[in-house]
């Protein structure tokens, strides 16, 4: 049997985040090609119950690091704990979601383990018993196949790209509690406060549907029509940099090279011209719809479907029509 596939999961408030299901499912798929087991690690406070769910998604072993010290995320605490577990398990590859947590942790682990990190991957493959990773460079303008030069490799997985499997409730993981020997004094950087965004808002990096607005929205209040459209499709509202720089939307909602990379099933661009830096963030969306009054706007070249017209007429009509379909 080959060396295990090690999956770092992510939870918040005792619940797995969607990226964890994606990473576990991909871990299972890779492990099946390698003929190796999946070992998952769960770090948090009050998270024992998650071990069972990890099993449903493909973990053979679930290592649980449960401690009050993990009530808040701490890069140093998480790194130390996960590092120790990786060294014990001696895996072939470590998979970790490329979420804001994963992007923070993965390079630290790689530096400590002196191994390669393929960041923000969009596909993994197994060739001759070795894992190959596909990732993007130059803001999605180039795809690169990379291989690890080190015996161990780490790959972080772009959210919303890897499909999450249907959970199999008959699968069981062996649960192994980990001893956590970290004290508050080990942590030089600590979370003082967690300011959560507006209510139950879905983050655009994880939304299945994004309705995005640009300078064509003319002002902050007009985004209400996008909120309505997004609500019908249970999606989130994104924005171009122009809209963010004008102060109409928060930076957290910005899509593009200096914003977030998103890959929803549906991306509806409203009053967005389609500048290269915007396309960089959304061109891997599965279906792109553009609404723009300028027929020559570059966004139409990337869109699967386009409507040339005034968004203030098209968007409310689209909201009404979609309501009929989804209800």
């Amino acid at each position, binding site marked *: 049997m080959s060396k295990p596939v090690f999956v770092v999961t992510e939870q918040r408030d005792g619940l797995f985040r969607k990226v964890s299901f994606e990473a576990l499912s991909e871990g299972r798929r890779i492990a099946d090609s390698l003929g190796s087991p999946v070992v998952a690690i769960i770090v948090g406070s009050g998270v024992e119950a998650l071990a069972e769910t990890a099993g449903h998604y493909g973990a053979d072993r679930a290592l649980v690091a449960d401690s009050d010290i993990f009530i808040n995320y701490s*890069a140093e605490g998480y790194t130390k704990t996960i590092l120790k577990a990786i060294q014990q398990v001696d895996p072939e590859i470590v998979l970790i979601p490329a*979420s*804001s947590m994963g*992007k*923070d942790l993965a*390079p*630290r682990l*790689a*530096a*400590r383990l002196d*191994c390669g*990190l*393929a*960041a*923000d991957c969009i596909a993994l493959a197994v060739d001759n018993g070795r894992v*190959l990773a596909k*990732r*993007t*460079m*130059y*803001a999605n*303008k*180039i*795809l690169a*196949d*990379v291989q690890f*030069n080190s015996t161990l*490799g780490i790959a972080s997985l772009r959210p919303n790209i890897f499909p999450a499997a249907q959970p199999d409730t008959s699968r069981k993981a062996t649960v192994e509690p980990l001893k956590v020997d970290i004290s508050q004094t080990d942590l*030089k950087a*600590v*979370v003082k*406060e967690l*300011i*959560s*965004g507006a209510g139950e808002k*879905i983050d655009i990096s994880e939304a299945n549907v994004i309705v995005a607005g640009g300078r064509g929205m003319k002002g902050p209040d007009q985004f209400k029509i996008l909120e309505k459209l997004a609500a019908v*499709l249970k999606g989130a509202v994104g924005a171009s940099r122009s809209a963010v720089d004008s102060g109409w939307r928060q*930076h*957290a909602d910005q899509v593009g090279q*200096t914003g977030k990379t998103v890959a929803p099933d549906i991306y509806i661009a409203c009053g967005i011209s389609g500048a290269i*830096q915007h396309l*960089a963030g959304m*061109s*891997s969306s*599965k*279906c*792109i*719809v553009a609404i723009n009054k300028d027929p020559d706007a570059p966004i*139409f070249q990337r869109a*699967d*479907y*386009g*409507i*040339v*017209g*005034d968004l203030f*007429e*098209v968007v409310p*009509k689209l909201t009404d029509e*979609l309501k009929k379909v989804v209800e």
Partner: protein
Amino acid sequence: MKILVCVKQVPDTETRIKIGSDKKSIDATDINWILNPYDEYAVEEAIQIKEKQGDTIVTVISVGPERSVSALRTAVAMGADEAILVKTDDDAYLDSLAVAKALVSVIKELEFDLILCGKQAVDDDNLQVGPMVAELLELPCVTFIADLKLENGKATAKREIEGGTMVIETSLPAVLTAEKGLNEPRYPALRGIMMAKRKPIDERQLQYIEPKIDVVSVEYPPTRKGGKIVGEGAEAVPELVKLLKEEAKVI
């Protein structure tokens, strides 16, 4: 206070990226090279700290080929005091860990209270070097900061996460990586540009470091088949909904 800022020279975000003849790297001709946009935030933050506190030296460091000197000069023109280039061969391939090790080899000999990096270099989009430098130096690190306050030898930074913001306090020295929104980078003034031209750059040769990741091949992403204009105005909406349901099958 002594602040180090790690900067990289990258292609302008408007540049058309062409794949090189080796099918592993990009064609470096006809590229307009700029200072990595996220590193501009890092440089700006360092200069603002200097302006606020006085008695501060800002040193910019880059690992890269000779042409990287112009990115260092941009940073000096903005207001950085000293510049160090760890010079590589023009076609040298370095992965992030190799870059981090190269930076650390220089940083180890310097005094510093704070290291600033960009969140990401917009060429390889690795998002790695900052936290790797921190880990190799065994320093705390806060990534993707959108706000920074220095007080009583501590730094308080805001870090955006999915659906919220973390407020993180860290002791110094620490490594911080800059997210967009941290500040508004200045345009270098003419005087700064003239001064930067004459600024001596401390150049050192890089010792070979083995990369842990190899790029096997690169390709262009599959082109999307040209967009279909469904129609004009609100009348086109029913047809669009039909296509989304029946052709794209996304609703």
